[in-house]
């Protein structure tokens, strides 16, 4: 990042005239808070000013669209967006593209067909495929349950896209000796996850593991298991990569976490915007790092959080050099 200093002094002139707007998902989820701090961190390193707006809830599709349309009429030089669904932001994006302002899509992808039909141009996409993350979790489950067995799935709000993709990925990733006995929705809420996991433990006495669609709910499930005195005997894998979840991996409450590093997604998104405003050509799509964190590598993950413990490629940092 030090190499980018001189170019960013050049770009900071542009950056002063060019503010960046970011519209991300739900407010009360730590995943997006981490993403936000990633954006802010990168913005302050690059000397860019940024306005970050978020939907009031993870289901607030039209509210998020309203916020983007509000910002679209303003004089922003680049937009970072994390749409709740593939299509809900398309109209705002069309408005932005019409003014030839670059759009950086992070985390959840914009539906390609919809974008095309609305003439919305996405400069680059940075994120992890949630299906792929779920698949990794499935593979990991197969690894820690070599003998197979019954597992239960805890999703977010029923019908939520992210949750659906993670659960579908998990189903793809597991070996055939693992059977999914139940799928419940816990609304992205730790307390609900705890209650439902407790109920499932009663219903399925020989359950071997849980896959949980995010860390917060995963911690609730872990609590249910420890309340039942079965910590360690029932495996829990969740997706996200929050610090609390790493701690839980360390204590053994969680067996593994598929970490998506929202911090990195956010900061790469910001870097992409800076590069775009400098007129650089962006790669079409960049995979954000994904990592399976288990007891073996958790110390490293913890010490480097919110960034990944292992190195990853950041093409935008290269561009900004």
């Amino acid at each position, binding site marked *: 990042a030090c190499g980018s200093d001189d170019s960013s002094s050049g770009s900071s002139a542009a950056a002063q005239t060019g503010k960046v707007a970011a519209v991300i998902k739900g*407010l009360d989820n730590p995943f997006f808070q981490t993403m*936000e701090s990633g954006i802010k961190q990168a913005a302050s390193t690059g000397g860019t000013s940024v*306005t*970050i*707006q*978020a939907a*009031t*809830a993870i*289901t*607030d*599709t*039209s*509210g998020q*669209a*309203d*916020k983007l*349309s*509000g*910002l*679209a*009429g*303003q*004089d922003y030089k680049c937009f970072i967006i994390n749409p709740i*669904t*593939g*299509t*809900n932001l*398309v*109209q705002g994006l*069309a408005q932005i593209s019409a003014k030839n302002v670059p759009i950086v899509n992070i985390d959840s992808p914009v*539906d390609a*067909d*919809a974008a095309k*039909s*609305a003439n919305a141009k996405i400069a680059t996409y940075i994120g992890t495929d949630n299906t792929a993350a779920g698949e990794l979790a499935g593979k990991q489950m197969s690894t820690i349950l070599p003998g197979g067995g019954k597992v239960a799935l805890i999703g977010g*709000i*029923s*019908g*939520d*896209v992210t949750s*659906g993709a993670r659960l579908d990925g998990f189903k793809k990733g597991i070996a055939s000796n693992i059977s999914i006995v139940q799928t419940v929705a816990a609304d992205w809420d730790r307390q609900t996850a705890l209650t439902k996991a407790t109920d499932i433990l009663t219903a399925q006495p020989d359950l071997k593991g849980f896959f949980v669609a995010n860390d917060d709910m995963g911690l609730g499930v872990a609590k249910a298991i420890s309340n039942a005195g079965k910590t360690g005997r029932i495996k829990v894998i969740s997706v996200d990569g929050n610090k609390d979840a790493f701690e839980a991996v360390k204590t053994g409450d969680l067996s593994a976490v598929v970490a998506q590093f929202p911090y990195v997604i956010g900061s790469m998104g910001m870097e992409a915007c800076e590069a775009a405003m400098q007129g650089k050509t962006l790669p079409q799509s960049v995979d954000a790092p994904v990592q399976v964190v288990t007891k073996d590598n958790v110390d490293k993950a913890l010490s480097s959080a919110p960034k990944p413990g292992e190195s990853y490629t950041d093409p935008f940092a290269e561009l900004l050099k």
Partner: protein
Amino acid sequence: MTTTRTDTATPSAPTAQRARAGGLIRWVLDPANLADWAALVGLVVLVVVFQALNSSFLSAGNIQSMLVAAAILVVLAVGQTFVVATAGIDLSIASVMTLAAVVFGTVFASGAGLLVAALAALATGALVGLANGLVISKGRITDFIVTLGTLSAASGLALIIADGKPRTIISGPLLRLATGHVGIFGYSFLIALVIAVVAHVVLFHTRFGTYVLATGGNAEAASATGVPTARIKTAVYVIAGVLAGIASILLVARVGAAEPAANTAFLLNSVAAVVLGGVSLFGGRATIVGPVIGALLLTALVNGLTLLGVSQFYQPLSVGVVVVLAAFLTRFQK
């Protein structure tokens, strides 16, 4: 005993004439009527403040996008007003919209035309509304719990029909509906406006409207006068359902997809718009203008806060405070 009007008849008769003659101004300033204007005053204050802080607030582009953003809420608030006027509440209005959207999406994806899909959405809303209305009026179950049940059931049905997945809808006419405009008025806002005007006429210039207000004001008295209160109660839920169906089409056009995850913010906002509009939740008194302005106020609030770049954590706080302040203006209400 005198049977002609004696001049002791002074206290109210001339007052009435004066009121008629003195006209609008005095009427508007009467504290009892101020409540009807609370939302408007709130909206004007808000607009002035936001414009002072950010000059692009009143730019044509932003006004247009605010109006379009408000359209769905306006339609829902009008539907909610009918229900609230009968002293009821429709908690299922947002879920019914979701269900209707999913039905719309499914029918459309199955290859049927746009019109068929739209009719299916309206029919869905009407049916759920009818179910609500019949259970409430015939079954004599509290509206709150019935529509809470429907809230849950309708979102469940939406999930089942959509198999939990959003369905992208790409259609030229829908796109035009979402983006087309006449001057600063987007098509979707114009639709909402027409609905509001029709609703106003129905509520204040037809028998049905009078019956709605009578049912809400005093159901016992109304039914002793021969007003078919059960049928009126059923009808308002059907109206709310149909309007939820119309809103669903606007929603699908806006977000470009039919999604089964319920948008709960619309529920509370629809009631908030109605209450900010000076309509009593105890029924019997209602306006259409009020809730429409209430909906605009809520939309302008979020838009303005976004334009000002108020940090995301401070937005809910600001919304809460402004809503209470706006409501302060309704304090003159009986």
